[in-house]
């Protein structure tokens, strides 16, 4: 009888381990993944989309603009209006997007003009591309890296207010923002 169960259990074991997995590839910085969930470029996103930290941790969150892979928009500056729960989080520090592939730089790799204001759970970031020569922007642009300090435990959504966000061209005309993705921060 034991042999019988062995012969029956072997194929059952194999079959039970043969599931087809869902192909859930979701990265906010990936325009392909965003388009699959209806977020079209140009879009303003946070990376990572969610994170869980403890009270002693520092929380790092990147603010990005995602263009399509084939975009030839001459993007030269932006204003991002970011909202967060200031009873749970406070801003520790902010830095401009780093130089390198996908960064907000010109062809000479100069640091953009970068300022920000913070008030009552709202953060306004202004970044301007200063080069007058031809610009080269790829599909993903890192605008800023924000470090938060947890104030108390809980879950906070960090989001863009797209009515106040702007992306401008070299000639200062506005590029419409078509998509937005929030970030979720859980403090334990």
């Amino acid at each position, binding site marked *: 009888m034991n*042999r019988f169960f062995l*012969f029956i259990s072997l*194929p059952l074991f*194999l*079959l039970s*381990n*043969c*599931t*087809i*997995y869902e*192909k*859930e*590839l*979701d*990265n906010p*910085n*990936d325009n*392909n*993944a965003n388009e699959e969930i209806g977020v079209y470029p140009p879009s303003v996103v946070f*990376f*990572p989309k969610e994170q869980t930290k403890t009270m002693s941790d520092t929380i790092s969150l*990147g603010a*990005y603009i995602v263009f399509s892979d084939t975009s030839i928009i001459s993007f030269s500056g932006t204003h991002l209006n970011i909202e967060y729960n200031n009873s749970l989080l406070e801003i520790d520090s902010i830095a401009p997007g780093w130089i390198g*592939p*996908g960064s907000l730089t010109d062809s000479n790799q100069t640091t953009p003009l970068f300022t920000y204001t913070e008030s009552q759970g709202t953060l306004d970031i202004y970044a301007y591309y200063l080069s007058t020569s031809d610009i080269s922007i*790829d*599909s*993903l642009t*890192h605008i800023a890296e924000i470090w938060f300090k947890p104030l108390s435990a809980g879950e906070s959504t960090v989001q863009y207010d797209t009515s106040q966000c702007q992306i401008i061209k070299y000639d200062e005309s506005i590029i419409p923002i078509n998509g937005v993705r929030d970030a979720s921060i859980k403090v334990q």
Partner: protein
Amino acid sequence: MRFLLALFMWIALLFGKDNTPSILILNEYDSSIGDIQLSEYFPSKNFIDGEDTSPFLSSLDSMNNPASGRMPLIRTMGEDFDVDYVLFHQIINDSSRFLLEGQMFNTKSGGLIHRRIVDITNYYKGQMNELKLWIGDVFKEIDKDWVDYRKLILFNDPEDIVQDKTPQGAMARSFMVPGWGQFYSDEYNSGVMFSGLEATLLSTVLLSYLSYNKSVKGFKNYTKLYEESSEQIEFDEYRSRAESEWDKHKIYNSAMIYTGITAGSIWVVNGIHAYIVGPRPKKDIIQKWDITSPNSN
């Protein structure tokens, strides 16, 4: 008149031809079955031992007409040995089987008048009895003791036979290990075929499962790296790899399922086949008691 008739009959009995049939015995045994003295059991017959069995060794069934195929030979032997009948016996013994073929020829016509083939499994200490039964059957002189002795040794009803090997046993074995039942039934070719086929299919299932597992691990790993990467060059690369592994895991999954179904179906067919080709009691008559000395005759 009555006196003359009685006198004539007495003279005829006294000087008439001897009615005792004479039989030339030709035995082709592959092993000794003991000292055969048939005249002890059939005293009214005149047995003459022959030696040259070679003309009888070719198969009777291969002739166009087995009954008349040896007519000239038998007539010649009848004249040479001055016998009424020729009785040819062929006995083949192996470790578990006893095969007796008896052929009775009439030397006047040269034709085959009686033939018997006895094929018995695990039959020892009964061969001599079987020979007596055959000759007794030819001359209608069967001793009741010989029949009783045969009944003592052999099962008359196949249903009563305690089978060493059964179709059910073959099927059970094949359901446990493909091909085992066929080997058990001495069907070696089909045994090799089923065991080989199942081994190949099950290896394919196992190989597909291992490849599937590897692809799943790869898919999960690359998905994690993809989700943790903020750089376009990196997440594009990880996405491509994750998608490739996902496609592979799907292919291996299908391969595993379809090969598994095929292997399972052939496994069932193998079990049914083992039952069909399994040993049947109606073919092999088996001795009642366990063999203790298979070499004894």
